[in-house]
């Protein structure tokens, strides 16, 4: 972690400015987050009073539902809710995402569904000849006619997919400029956005890849850099309002871990597989005992990667949302203004702290994921020549 302790004594006014700007940004983020939560909460309690008219006075605030709404996938990009003037009705503002469906009856079909809520969506889908099955919180599209041996494949992008594409686009733009800067300023000091990213790229190469990959790091650098910056960018974007956090989605981290698994095993040397299926220099019963243990080890290492990244990011978001939810819990849904105002400074201070921590966790988790990928691939690349020599001597 060399880049973090390059402190210079004459940097103080500059550092002060940076800290000021950063804290301003963080406070703005906190406020926008809490506004988003309040909007969702109000629309939710509004819904519950619509369904159960007799119980209007008791507006319960469901924290776990709010958490899930924030973290889970959805088929529209929910931004905020706008209160209407007359009956306390809230209209959500959200961007509907396209449906791309391949079915046996209609072939490839591309359409948009309009409307909010289950009912309006269903109506809109029926006009197109489809029906949407809601199961828990997930939506599944089916053909309306429902033929005997018909099939339907759903390719439609969800919020996470769109967010991932946006991050990919931004990364392409940023790193094209970095690469151009590197080509233009060859031998000179870096300029512009290149000055930010070049030290990080060099750090990944020299401190992460080189010590672990036994001189073969050049082959893996493109993947490792993509991995690091994709995770880091996603974590940063997950902290911004409107954007969704994609590393808090276990499917994404599963895919990244699967890539690590594939790269590790496809680069495995004879010695690597030898250590798995026929552990050298141990008696026969232990050799047999080691086979299942090593086989479990192949899968458990990427599995730990998957859960670590997912749980870190998801837990950070849960914590931020729970701290902001405290305002609404103690405010009792707008009935107790004193309670809400009383907890607000505390809630804001803690949220600010957790958000700062999350910015740090975002880069540390990207670093750890890249580092562990390097370590695992390095373990597969390693050839234990010494153990074979021992065997030769024993023979």
């Amino acid at each position: 972690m060399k880049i973090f302790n390059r402190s210079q004594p004459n940097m103080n006014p500059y550092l002060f400015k940076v800290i000021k700007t950063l804290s301003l940004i963080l406070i703005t983020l906190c406020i926008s987050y809490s506004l988003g939560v309040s909007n969702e909460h109000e629309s939710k309690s509004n819904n519950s009073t619509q369904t159960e008219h007799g119980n209007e006075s008791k507006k319960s605030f469901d924290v776990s539902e709010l958490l899930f709404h924030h973290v889970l996938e959805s088929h529209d990009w929910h931004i905020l809710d706008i209160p209407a003037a007359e009956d306390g009705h809230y209209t959500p503002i959200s961007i509907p995402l396209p449906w791309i469906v391949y079915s046996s009856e209609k072939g490839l079909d591309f359409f948009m569904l309009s409307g909010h809520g289950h009912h309006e969506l269903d109506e809109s889908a029926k006009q197109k000849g489809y029906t949407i099955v809601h199961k828990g919180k997930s939506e599944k599209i089916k053909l309306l006619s429902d033929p005997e041996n018909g099939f339907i494949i759903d390719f439609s992008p969800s919020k996470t997919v769109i967010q991932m594409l946006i991050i990919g686009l931004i990364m392409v733009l940023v790193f094209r400029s970095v690469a151009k800067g590197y080509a233009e300023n060859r031998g000179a000091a870096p300029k512009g956005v290149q000055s930010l990213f070049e030290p990080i790229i060099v750090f990944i190469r020299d401190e992460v890849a080189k010590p672990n990959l036994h001189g073969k790091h050049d082959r893996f650098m493109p993947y490792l850099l993509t991995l690091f910056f994709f995770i880091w960018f996603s974590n940063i974007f997950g902290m911004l309002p409107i954007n969704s956090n994609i590393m808090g989605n276990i499917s994404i981290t599963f895919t990244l871990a699967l890539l690590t698994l594939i790269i590790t095993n496809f680069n495995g040397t004879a010695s690597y597989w030898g250590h798995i299926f026929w552990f050298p220099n141990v008696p026969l019963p232990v050799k047999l005992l080691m086979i299942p243990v090593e086989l479990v080890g192949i899968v458990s290492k990427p599995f730990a990667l998957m859960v670590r990244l997912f749980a870190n990011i998801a837990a950070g978001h849960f914590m931020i949302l729970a701290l902001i939810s405290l305002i609404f819990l103690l405010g009792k849904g707008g009935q107790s203004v004193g309670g809400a105002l009383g907890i607000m400074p505390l809630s804001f201070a803690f949220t600010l702290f957790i958000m700062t921590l999350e910015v740090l966790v975002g880069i540390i988790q990207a670093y750890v994921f890249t580092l562990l990928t390097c370590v695992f691939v390095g373990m597969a690349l390693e050839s234990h020549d010494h153990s074979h020599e021992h065997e030769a001597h024993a023979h």
Partner: protein
Amino acid sequence: MFLEISGSIGHMGAGIGAGLVAMGAGMGIGRLAGSAVESMARQPAATNDIRGSMILTAAFIEGVALFGEVICLLISFTA
């Protein structure tokens, strides 16, 4: 009461479990950081190597702790 306390004994188990996991992870990372800082003070030349292996080991401890926390979270949502 500020917060209405309701739920099953499963919720209690999830809460206690989360606390135990936090204790275990805290002890583990505390010991790790303690010895790492001590060895950095003894041998400042090796600071970078020690820091690298400290972060790696902390990631392993944290991984195990997060397994536990995720399970506790799942219990608290399903119980």
